[in-house]
């Protein structure tokens, strides 16, 4: 497969796609400044997003404040991020947007991890024809044009849920999670397979085998725990990638529907009026940027700490 040949060379040549200025310096310190920044940002964002319904200073994302319409308020003490066209609080919408974007990204990466991880583990451990079948499957998946497939599936699932009552539960949140999960299967399967292949050559696996351990024991007690660091890094960088993807799809109108806020949707709603009300477009962008940056930073730190090469999704 054309993509296979090229991307395997890429994997091999990627040691320093793991990123930073000074490779040796930070690794001995426990907490790198970027990690501290990233953890604080993500922690605060997650707490705000989860507790958004209960915190008194976060308005409802649909609540229209009287006199605040037509972008009446810029950023200030009353409206932290200003108000939008309909007098809704941009800060509240950004926080609820975080809730939606993070939930979608996290559940899709879990879906990808569950399916792709199982496939990669099985392929890397069992090898033989099973490995070959999975590898071909993964290569074909990787050859799909991601954007076409995502907007197509989201669009068709809309029709499906509107036309038949069996699928009426299939809301946009479900379809977008499904699509992003589907797209993350192949890269994850590939990374897990590579890791499993190298782990199963190691002495401790040999030792366990010669002690008479069954396959299931070797997989669950020996290999799986050793996959955890790589998986952690994959989850973080993967969420970053999916947040970008979700933002793009939302901008094109193929993620959650309004009035639900998602960062990409907020950008597309307000960008026409960016000149008179910069806050309504710029703040969602900053939120998206800082969140993606934080996930990448943590993913990168974990990858470097455990010297994982295939971590770049």
């Amino acid at each position, binding site marked *: 497969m054309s993509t296979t040949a090229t991307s395997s060379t890429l994997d091999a040549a*990627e040691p320093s796609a793991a990123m930073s*200025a000074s490779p040796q310096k930070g690794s001995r310190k426990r907490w790198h400044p970027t990690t501290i920044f990233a953890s604080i940002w993500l922690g605060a964002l997650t707490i705000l997003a989860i507790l958004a319904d209960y915190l008194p200073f976060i308005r409802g994302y649909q609540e229209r404040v009287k006199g605040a319409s037509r972008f009446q308020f810029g950023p200030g003490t009353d409206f932290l991020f200003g108000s939008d066209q309909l007098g809704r609080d941009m800060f509240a919408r950004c926080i609820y947007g975080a809730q939606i974007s993070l939930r979608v990204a996290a559940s899709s990466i879990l879906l990808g991890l569950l399916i792709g991880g199982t496939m990669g583990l099985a392929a890397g451990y069992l090898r033989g024809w099973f490995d070959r079948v999975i590898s071909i499957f993964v290569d074909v998946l990787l*050859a799909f044009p991601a954007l*076409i497939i995502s907007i197509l599936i989201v669009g068709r699932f809309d029709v499906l849920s509107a036309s038949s009552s069996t699928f009426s539960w299939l809301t946009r949140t479900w379809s977008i999670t499904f699509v992003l999960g589907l797209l993350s299967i192949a890269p994850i399967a590939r990374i897990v397979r590579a890791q499993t292949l190298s782990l199963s050559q190691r002495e401790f696996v040999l030792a366990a085998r010669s002690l008479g351990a069954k396959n299931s024991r070797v997989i669950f007690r020996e290999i799986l725990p050793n996959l955890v660091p790589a998986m952690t890094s994959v989850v973080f960088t993967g969420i970053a990638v999916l947040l970008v993807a979700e933002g793009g799809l939302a901008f*094109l109108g193929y993620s959650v529907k309004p009035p639900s806020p998602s960062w990409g949707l907020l950008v597309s709603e307000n960008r026409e009026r960016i000149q008179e009300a910069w806050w309504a477009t710029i703040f969602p*962008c900053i939120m998206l940027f800082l969140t993606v940056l934080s996930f990448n930073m943590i993913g990168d730190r974990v990858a470097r700490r455990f010297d994982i090469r295939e971590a770049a999704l």
Partner: protein
Amino acid sequence: MRYTLQRVGQFVIVFVIVTFVVMVATRIGSKDVARDLAGGAVSDALIERVNNDYPYLDKPLVVQYGYWLKDMVTGNMGTSYAQSQDVVDMFKQRLPVTFFVGFWAIFIGLLIAVPLGVYSAYRRDGWVDRVSSYISFAFISTPPLVFAVFLIYFVALRLDVFPVLSDYVAPWDNPVEHAKNFFLPALSLGMGLAAIWTRFLRADMIITLQSDFIMLARAKGMSPSRILWRHALRASVLSLVTSVALQVSSLVGGAVIAEQFFGLAGIGTRLVFAVQANDILVIQAVTAVLVVTVVAVNLLVDLLYAVIDPRIRHARVFA
């Protein structure tokens, strides 16, 4: 020869699977394919015409796919009834737009990445290297959408040079206007590419600079710029070139967003519209063209490897 055959075989398999799956996907939840093809709420006469043009719509999917493939191979991509336009004409009209967005994005990416990557590796851990590594980390984490917003707000609206909404002007008609219209969309995609490629090139370059032939060149008294640009660069561009090829398919996703954002009438804007209207033939044709493009670029890169790096050329001959 065997290698070529293998590649062609793999291409055919991938092409068939991808386009078939996309065709199946266009039928999800669809009750009347002829009506979808005709463009939704239209007169019975038009549906009659669609049924006349495509008499095989009631056959099994595989048969329909066979007919589509036959048409495709003979260069007939069908008609978009919703737009009353031949799909081939649609491509002629819109493909240049998308092509130039992608082309200039790659151009800008390389224009920044090559000098910066080489210099960062040459003066490793110097201030240029440090600054560029922080900036590229930030740029890698910046979605094209965010770049586009910032470029519009801080550049297009402040300077009178670039239009907020771009138009397609062919470079051979008016190069200056072409540059003005394509600079921002291409830059919004190119900066992220530049960041990724700088990292790749820097990493490979550092390894190359430690090799024996560089030491020999240095011992001979060759000037640093000659060593860097003539000898080291050539041996270090492999993963960069690979990455350029790999980015082509994801670049298409970015191009769709850039087109939509800057109001360019390219394939991307049309694709989004086609999915909304379930304009099946347009979706399938765009998919097919995209898959072929990606494969062609990969093939080109494979050939390029041999041109760039004599070691690979020889390895292949002797393998």
